[in-house]
């Protein structure tokens, strides 16, 4: 595993298709110092642009955080696969205010030095389509099925996109923020 290669390649990948902008590492609201917690009402964070952030591992638990477009995620996983990382989990987050769903991929390195990478993709809520990682990491199969269960995200090309944890005949997605219970 070579950290520098991963960071360079992912940075290049995430920057693809983005309008050329000066390299301003925007510190999103999530990077606020700790005192931010004490404010009564933090200002609504600016929507984050695609790109790579190197985070403070001690505070966040991940080293590299990359936001990319939906069609880049397979390439991103391939970069990480080539460097010997493993896919630890896939999950979603429902950003209902922005009318977006976020798919989060957690990667970690088990070969020695600790290195955690997270890929995230924002997709529109009403057109929640994203390519599957099943061909790169077979473990994505179940994680994606679980995410499909909970968020209704359609993983294009998934061999068996059926409910995994919820009953086979369920048609609700409980982790969507507009889920009101049964």
């Amino acid at each position: 595993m070579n950290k520098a290669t991963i960071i360079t390649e992912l940075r290049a990948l995430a920057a693809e298709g983005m309008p050329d902008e000066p390299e301003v590492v925007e510190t999103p609201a999530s990077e606020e110092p700790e005192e931010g917690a004490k404010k009564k009402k933090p200002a609504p964070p600016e929507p984050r642009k695609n790109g790579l952030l190197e985070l403070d591992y001690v505070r966040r638990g991940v080293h590299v955080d990359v936001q990319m477009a939906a069609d880049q995620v397979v390439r991103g996983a391939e970069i990480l696969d080539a460097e010997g990382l493993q896919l630890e989990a896939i999950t979603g987050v429902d950003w209902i205010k922005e009318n977006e769903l976020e798919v989060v991929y957690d990667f970690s390195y088990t070969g020695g030095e600790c290195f955690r990478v997270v890929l995230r993709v924002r997709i529109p809520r009403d057109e929640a389509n994203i390519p599957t990682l099943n061909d790169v990491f077979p473990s994505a199969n179940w994680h994606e099925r679980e995410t499909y269960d909970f968020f209704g995200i359609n993983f294009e090309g998934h061999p068996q996109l059926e409910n995994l944890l919820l009953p086979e005949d369920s048609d609700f997605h409980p982790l969507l923020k507009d889920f009101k219970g049964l």
Partner: protein
Amino acid sequence: MGSQALSQNNETFEINLGPQHPATHGVLRVKLTMDGEYIVDAEPVLGYIHRMHELMGENRTWAKYLPNMGRIDYLSALSYNLGYVQLVEKMMGIEVPERAEYIRVLTTEMNRISSHLLWFGAFVLDLGGFTPLLYAFDDREHILDLLESVTGSRLTYCYYRFGGLYNDVDDDFLTGCTQFLKRLRSRMPMYHKLVTGNVILRQRLVGVGPLSAEMCRKYGATGPVLRGSGVNYDVRKNEPYSIYPELDFDVPVYSDGDSMARYMVRMDEIEQSMRIVEQCIAKMPQGEIKAPKVPKLIKPAIGDYYHAVEAARGTFAIRAVSDGKNQAYRMKLRAPTFCNLSLYQEASKGMLLADALAFMGSLDLVIPEIDR
């Protein structure tokens, strides 16, 4: 999933292993397509004990979510407690007093021993040997008694608090631990003679269900399954948390990748955990058990946080997304056996039914943890 008979012109038949089956330890169902005694395809069907802990995490305050942690993997509940409180401490930047850290590691490792002992018994039971189960339970009972005397519960612990512990341990507990370790030390050779050395057990485990390191990586397997495949990865060593860097212990690694290797990894981990407990008792500092300043209202800064710990079955990780409120916006629980089981379908192809069950046992499944 297409399924073809292993030999031509042979018929296959489907058989349901579970959801109520003696070998699945709970409510796991495996849809087996069999060609005689050979497995053509084994598809695990999950969700029979799904409780949606993740949604509960979004509806409860950070403190109120604590009891849930004891109920995900009820066999190593303290590892889960630890992972969660450490995540919140990470988010809030709370410093934990040293004594509390030592007690946390001590109790977590005792819990790990008890989890491995139960696995040991249940695994041999899967293979048809009944007696070692009760010997293991006899030892485990001592651990449960000890943990009960400090935490108050026997299985679904809720002992750690943000910034410390629920209550302090006393000297009785520490001497009890020392005595127990002495007892277990004298019992381990008996286990090895009775079970590990047994020719029938070796025949059933050696070479059964080999997993390559590459396959473990592709499927995200962690814990003893990964270490049984020759990968030296333990969150306690690779990504040290709490006071583990100060303790002297080894990570047992076996490179064969078969069920016997996984068995040996867990048996050696019992020994290593005993070493850790001993060091904790010897080094136990005096002092406070709770951080002096723990905010009453837990409102972490906006952002997402990730924390991983080594539970008895592998890497347990939480990804929490906070929107600055007193509840989590999103709480993702990454359960180790979920990934460990996902390789079952591929790895069990072409196995005999009996071997497939031995292999399943060697993965150490706890179904409530998979289904969450």
